[in-house]
Structure formats: C-alpha cells, structure tokens
C-alpha cells in the first residue's frame, strides 16, 4: 500500500486575488507532487493541500516567502489512515 508517512495537509488562506494566483502557481509545480484536496478558488475560501514529506520544506518556504498564511490541518496523513484501518478491522471482528 502507498505510504503516507509524514505527509501533511495544509490549509492555506489566500487573502486576495494575487495570493490565489500565487497558490495556482504552486499547483503548477509538478515536481512537488502536491495533491489539492480543495483547490484555489476565491479569496477567503480555504485551500487544502496534501504535501508529501519530501516537499514540505519547499512548500512552507514558498508560502512564507509570499506572505501566505497556513495552518497544519493534518499533521500526519498515515496516522489517520492507520486509525481508519484499525477501526475497520475492529468493526469486522
């Protein structure tokens, strides 16, 4: 199974149209392998993105350099998936 250890989901707040565009630029950087759960839309709408562990540093630097505010929505995706699997197994037994 695909391993999501260390992947984080960041919630980004884009305050204006320029910041929305900034996130769209980030979306185009294929090498970062970002997975937008909730894409950039309008200023004020939250943007959620799953960031693989190797890209976390680069993404956070990008966001901070452009004054984009963010919070960590999910600290470690794999730990939530482990909980989910455990719950499924428990319900079967």
């Amino acid at each position: 199974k695909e391993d999501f250890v260390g992947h984080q989901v960041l919630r980004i707040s884009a305050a204006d149209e320029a910041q929305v565009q900034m996130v769209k630029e980030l979306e185009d950087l294929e090498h970062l392998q970002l997975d937008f759960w909730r894409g950039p839309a309008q200023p004020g709408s939250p943007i959620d993105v799953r960031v693989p562990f190797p890209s976390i540093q680069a993404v956070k630097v990008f966001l901070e350099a452009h004054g984009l505010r963010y919070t960590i929505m999910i600290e470690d995706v794999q730990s939530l998936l482990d909980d989910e699997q455990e719950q499924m197994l428990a319900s079967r037994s």
Partner: protein
Amino acid sequence: WARSTNTFNYATYHTLEEIYDFMDLLAAEHPQLVSKLQIGSSYEGRPIYVLKFSTGGNNRPAIWIDTGIHSREWVTQASGVWFAKKITQDYGQDPAFTAILDNMDIFLEIVTNPDGFAFTHSKNRMWRKTRSLTSGSTCIGVDPNRNWDAGFGKAGASSNPCSETYHGKFANSEVEVKSIVDFVKDHRNIKAFISIHSYSQLLLYPFGYKRESPADKDELDQVAKSAVEALTSLYGTKFKYGSIITTIYPASGGTIDWTYNQGIKYSFTFELRDTGRYGFLLPASQIIPTAQETWLALLTIMEHTLNHPY
C-alpha cells in the same frame, strides 16, 4: 459478513465486495421494492450496479442519486449504503417519502467508480480518478467529473493525464461515465439527478463550465436554500449553495451540467461533510450523522420534484 441488512454495520467503512454483498442482501429482503441492475462494467471489468427502488408502474418519472464517483470520498459511498437502507425503512412509514415512491422510481448508484474505490482499499487511499490507461502517458486515470459532454475540455479541467483533473481523451471516454449517459438517455424520464461528493459542505447547481445562469436559476436556488436549511436543522452543519462556477471555481465536463443540458431540471451536486477538518479522512463515527442530515436535503429535493412535474 452481515447476514442481513439489519446487522450490517452502517457506522464503518466497507470494501467494494462488502457493499456489493449489501446490495444483494437488500434486494433479497425487499424483492417487491428493490432490484439490482447492472448498467455496465468498469475499465477493469468490475460490474457497475444501480439499485432500483420501485413500487410498480412502467418507466415512471425517476430520481437518480449517485455516490462515490471520486473514489477517495469514502463518506459518500458509506452514505449511499445508508440511503439504500433508509429508503426501505421509510417506505410505508414516512408519508411524505411514501408519496414520492408511490409515484416515482429512485435509482441509486452507490459505487460509481468501482475500480478507483477498490484501488483506494488495496493500494492508494488517496486515489480519486478512474483506472483507465492513457496511450502515450505513464499516468493512469481520468477525472470522471470532468469527462462529461458539457463544455468538455474547457476551463477547470486539465489536458495533462498526470493531473487529478485530467478530462480524458474525449467526452464519455470513461466507461463509468458512458454507462450512466446511456442509462439516462435510454430511460428518458429522469426528473432529478443528484450526484454526491465530499467534502467542503456545498450544494451546487449548474453551471460549472460557463458563467451564464441556468434558465431555472431562481427555482434551483430556492430549492437549494430549502434543502440546505433542512440539512442544517439536524446538527447545525453549515452548507453554502449556488452555482458551481460562482460558489467554487470553473469546472468543465461536470456531471450535472450534462444532465441539466439533457433537460433534467433538478440537477444538483453535493459536497458532504468536512466537520472536524479531516477532509477525505472523515472518521467513521461521522458516517451516520452525515447521511442523516444529507437525507433531509435529499428529501426536500425529491419532494419538490414530485410536486413540480414538468
């Protein structure tokens, strides 16, 4: 394995096989009300099933509900299972719902993207697309909510096969989409079409591929408002509503834009719960509350459809 739909655990996530077994159980328990139709086979050869709820008649006006076209949105398939059971429980008990099913059929497709769903269980929990191969690319899958023949290939869809919003080589290239297209066209009497996604808590109506308002915008807006009020009344979950393009962003080739263009006036799409900020990893403890509140919104749309024939 559950031996009856009464002992089935609705408060946990299930595999494709478990959901398909649930469908068989439900149809066996309610042979006068529920039947299982196969409308096609997926890219990898899995059957694509629809539950038909009907109290008789011939080609009655119908309501279509689908869940799980994006495979990682697990709360949608889980809600679909709960809706199926709810339909069998409420028919004959809830007068408003009974009136709907006495006059209309309901078609419920619980796993709209079976290959993707199986893949989320076996290999990659985050898989969203179909599993079809694209010649000339090493990337797999098409976004089935960008593959419909409504503004196909315009803004809000990607031509890059590696993108999560890849629209495919041509409209209806995905058999999971084409199977529904053929079914809707053959049926010719579907009056409401509701496609259910998660997350971000929205109830949306056309269009996603153009800024132009649908001819029925005022009525759709009013129905959406009532449906959201009903949904919120249960647990206070906040939903926004409006057209796709104004409420989120441009998205071409989407399901309900095509159905609306086919003449299905009551075309809506939901984005279910994100309460607790878990995104696609909504804890299983929230499945039943999510399904319960969504059912109230569905009832509002279904009642309106029954009471406003066209």
